[in-house]
């Protein structure tokens, strides 16, 4: 019993990191119907920011979370201006964005690989190899800290969307773009800011990922499918859904890994993707941002 609890807790800690990884993806989809396949490579970009700040000036990756977020958000604004601005106002072009962002992912991957090569890296602050015991339950501090920071950021995002004026405008735009305009929301600005926030979330997730997983530029291909399965289970565009989807799949895959075989744990994500698309394509929570 204790051992099950142990596995579940580890799965949850990781699940919150996954949730942070996909929250920006689902926010951007909810507002603009852009399926951003470049989201995982933006996470890796954030991871590189933290990695180099740690290597060069010894900055703790948890402290570099805001910096990674800002750098990647800024990159997001540039990409948005270059690629999406013209079309983001149209709600019906999500098919096209799959190709567009796929290409974007390849380009960023290529640039990162050119400079940093595809060698495995991991940021290694002192706590990365530590663990703490709560009773008989053991939790690696890297997963504990990254899980806690993720929860904090996701909570802040949820509060921002629920209560701030601009957050409400973001939700309104994702639920009914024309109506949002017709009550006075500057939808173009909402799109730009949501894209920047979504990319910023990717950057912040990258800072955490940098000491939890080893990473290299082309690793994002593997993450795309996993992240898609999380958002599809929750329902594209629903942040609540993405969080719940991430927690469920992370726990299940940890259980499979512990009690069956680690080799099959990744299968959980793809199986979920397959089953959800077959039986409930709108996911657990429909298509809106909440």
């Amino acid at each position, binding site marked *: 019993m204790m051992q099950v609890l142990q596995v579940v807790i580890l799965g949850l800690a990781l699940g919150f990191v996954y949730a942070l990884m996909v929250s920006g993806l689902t926010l951007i989809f909810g507002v603009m119907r852009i399926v951003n396949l470049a989201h995982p490579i933006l996470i890796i970009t954030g991871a590189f920011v933290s990695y180099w700040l740690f290597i060069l000036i010894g900055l703790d990756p948890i402290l570099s979370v805001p910096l990674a977020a800002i750098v990647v958000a800024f990159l997001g604004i540039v990409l948005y201006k270059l690629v999406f601005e013209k079309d983001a106002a149209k709600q019906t072009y999500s098919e096209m964005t799959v190709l567009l962002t796929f290409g974007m992912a390849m380009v960023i991957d290529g640039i990162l690989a050119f400079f940093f090569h595809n060698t495995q890296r991991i940021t290694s602050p002192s706590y990365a190899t530590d663990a703490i015991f709560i009773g008989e339950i053991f939790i690696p501090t890297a997963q504990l800290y990254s899980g806690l920071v993720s929860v904090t950021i996701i909570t802040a995002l949820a509060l921002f969307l629920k209560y701030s004026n601009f957050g*409400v405008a973001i939700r309104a735009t994702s639920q009914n773009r024309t*109506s949002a305009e*017709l*009550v006075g929301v*500057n939808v173009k600005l909402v799109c730009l800011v949501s894209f920047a926030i979504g990319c910023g979330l990717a950057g912040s997730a990258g800072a955490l990922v940098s000491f939890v997983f080893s990473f290299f530029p082309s690793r994002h291909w593997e993450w795309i499918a996993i992240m898609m399965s999380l958002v599809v289970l929750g329902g594209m565009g629903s942040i609540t859904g993405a969080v719940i989807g991430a927690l469920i799949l992370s726990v299940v895959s940890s259980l499979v890994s512990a009690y069956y075989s680690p080799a099959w744990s990744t299968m959980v994500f793809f199986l979920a993707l397959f089953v959800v698309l077959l039986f409930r394509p709108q996911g657990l929570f429909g298509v809106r941002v909440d």
Partner: protein
Amino acid sequence: MTNLLDMRNLVAGYGYGPDIIHDFNLQIKKSEVKCIIGPNGAGKSTVLKAITGVLKPRSGAVEFEGKDIAGKEAYQIMRQGICFLPQERAIFPNMTVAENLKMGTYSLQDKRLAEERIHHAIETFPVLGERLHQLSGTLSGGQQQQLVYARAFAIQPKLMLIDEPSLGLAPALVEQTFQHIANIASSGIAVILVEQNAFRGLEAADYGVVMDLGKLVFEKPANEVLQDQRIRELYLGKAAKQ
């Protein structure tokens, strides 16, 4: 009295497609109600979209209170005091009734005034007051309709454009909706109405505007349009016989 809205030689169309509206003129003064009628595909909705910036006019002038608004963004035009209720039901389904009403005062800086207006809207639509914390997507069709009007009340525009208010509504709700429109008009707000049920629409209006193939056919006082023999045959057909 000067015109509140003055639209001259409007040309509009979608994407790379042909012009849908040709050289269209429309004026409205404060407190007037005009009803645009015409066959399906005549371009009635397109005219409303072009006024409100949902669709950018290709050429022509649109002036509101003497200011040029052609080509401006929809949110900017809205902030000038034009409220548009499009054909499709314009609520935010995953927001509560209260949040939806609050969206009506989104662009209002004065928060006290905003609360007053929301309060007033709730008083006018008590059904909504009982459901403030319900998600609006779960309201019945009639309640959603009321929510749209209540939000418009909270906006307190100078001009309201309403596209097919009675479309798809049960007869009792149609009456209720026209009652809302009458209230809006009597509070001094100018209204441009597009209505499938031309008979009912003209009854609520001061002027009837007949359009076809993207052009103005003629404009007359509503009661004259109602008497016009050609119009009775062409557009009022079914409704007039009822």
